[in-house]
């Protein structure tokens, strides 16, 4: 189920602009890794290269290698669609499909790919995914209601359920709690702790307390200035990053003396 990610010398470009430069990082299976850093430092961009979602933006391309348990995501003949079935993603704003019920939202990854499942199988997938996302008890009586009728925090957990329904190896989360209130944030953070028993979780966050709470390892990204590429400054155990950082920039950032 869970796979490790090894990135070697990755550069990400938007057209001619180099957004991220020379990132090498090893992410363990069954762990939570947090990316922190100032806005515009390329952490979201880098996250999106881990399932080739950056290719949705015209002109975006990469140099380097991203290995998923040794398989290069950017090797010749690799289908980005296949990559994304192995590496799922949860976005900043909850985005359930407005035309679908809660059940169909969970099944979206399965149904939209045209797979046919029996009724009992789909019920099983729906229940296990919603239980996995800590949402089952709240929505089990209204699975046929539209997903957009849920609260923001419930919608975000619905999106997580939707992501784990396709049984990925890795789940990427791009600031999953920045649009949520503290209670919903807590629910999602608890969920992340449970998810790491089965999945490799990579999370981008602006909230350093959150990174400290949920992650095993933390990567700090930074940019030298506007128009310069983002770089990975330091990557270590979360306790080391927050208590005993090696780099001056990291220390300044985590202690709030940045800029």
């Amino acid at each position: 189920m869970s796979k490790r990610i090894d990135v070697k010398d990755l550069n990400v470009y938007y057209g001619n602009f180099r957004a991220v430069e020379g990132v090498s990082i090893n992410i363990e299976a069954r762990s939570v890794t947090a990316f922190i850093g100032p806005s515009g430092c390329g952490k979201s961009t880098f996250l999106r290269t881990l399932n080739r979602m950056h290719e949705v933006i015209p002109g975006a391309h990469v140099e380097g290698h991203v290995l998923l348990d040794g398989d290069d995501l950017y090797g010749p003949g690799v289908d980005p669609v296949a990559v994304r079935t192995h590496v799922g993603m949860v976005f900043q704003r909850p985005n359930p499909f407005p035309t679908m019920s809660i059940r169909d939202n969970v099944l979206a990854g399965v149904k939209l790919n045209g797979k046919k499942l029996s009724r009992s199988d789909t019920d099983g997938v729906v229940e296990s995914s919603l239980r996995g996302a800590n949402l089952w008890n709240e929505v089990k009586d209204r699975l046929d209601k539209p997903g957009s009728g849920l609260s923001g925090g419930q919608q975000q957990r619905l999106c997580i359920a939707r992501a784990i329904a396709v049984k990925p190896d890795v789940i990427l989360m791009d600031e999953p709690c920045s649009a949520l209130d503290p209670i919903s944030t807590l629910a999602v953070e608890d969920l992340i702790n449970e998810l790491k028993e089965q999945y490799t979780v990579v999370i981008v966050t602006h909230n350093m307390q959150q990174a400290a709470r949920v992650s095993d390892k933390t990567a700090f990204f930074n940019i030298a200035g506007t128009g310069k590429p983002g770089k990975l400054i330091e990557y270590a155990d979360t306790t080391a990053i927050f208590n005993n950082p090696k780099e001056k920039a990291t220390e300044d950032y985590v202690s709030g003396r940045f800029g």
Partner: protein
Amino acid sequence: MTAIATPRRRTSLTRNRLPRIAPWASLVVGLVVGAAVSTLVGFNVFGWGVFAAIAFTIVYVAWSAAVEGGRKARDKFATCLVIGSFIIVVLPLFSVIWTVLEGGIKGLLTPGFLGTSMNGVSGIQDNQSVNTGSRVVGGIYHALIGTLLITLWSTIISVPVGLLTSIYLVEYSRGGRLGQAITLFVDVMTGIPSIVAGLFAAALFATIFGPGTQTGFVAAVALTVLMIPVVVRSSEEMLRIVPNELREAAYALGVRKWRTILKVVVPTAISGIASGVTLAIARVIGETAPILLTAGFATKINLNVFSNWMASLPTYIYFQILNPTSPSNPDPSLQRAWGAALVLIIFVMILNLIARLVARIFAPKTGR
């Protein structure tokens, strides 16, 4: 709990206000002044209305300026302009509806008007009905069928073409050269005079099937030329406002692009697309010139769009007015023409209502 009493007194926060009857008082003054001025130049209702509106605006705004100050006065002036423009736009609409209702209701209520064609109806019958006072025979059944069939066929052709074009523009072209060219040509197509569209279809079928090919299908092709740009434009707008997040969410689940478009993007936009299509139909259903050129004119019922001439409501109206069935007694023909016009307007209104209904039915639901 004690309510906080706020006695009316002047503070730095209060301003003078017009009394509540001010608009009505100004209106009365305006009507009186308007009547007086219009009598000076020769009284008629239209002139009275115009002068009354001007007088009302002057009185109301001047009063407000004197009591309330410049800002409120400018606000009232803008309000008068907005409401005035609204009346200018709406009056002709009501006038048209009223005129057609008045002229058409008699024809529409004649028994057999909707259910019979003009087959075998000639000047003899019309003269007879005028002379003896019996009911006007003949109806619009054939034209109704023709309009429905021609519009149906042009919808069948133009909706897939238009929808697929807009999908290409929004989802695939990414602002490329071809996409820009298509947008330009669609804009140009929007401005094509309908007679040119008719000439195009007539010429196209004349080239392929020989000159004089006039059938309902040729008319449908002519209407297609007019309909496609409207469909492209409206569905393009609708597809563009589908949030990118939904596409990304689908991609992140490993869904292929075409399935994302088919199962996520189009269903999300379907209510707008459907109402856009309905409005496009309403736009072409009353076209006259291209149908005259391409479908000819029939007095018989023709259910086959691929052979022989076909009548339609607009051409029916045109010929009933221009060439009355009985040249010496045109009244029955006029009655039929007004009736057909009323039916056409009812059609367009129903289509607009359907568009709203469709938009509501397909709209994403947010129920809790």
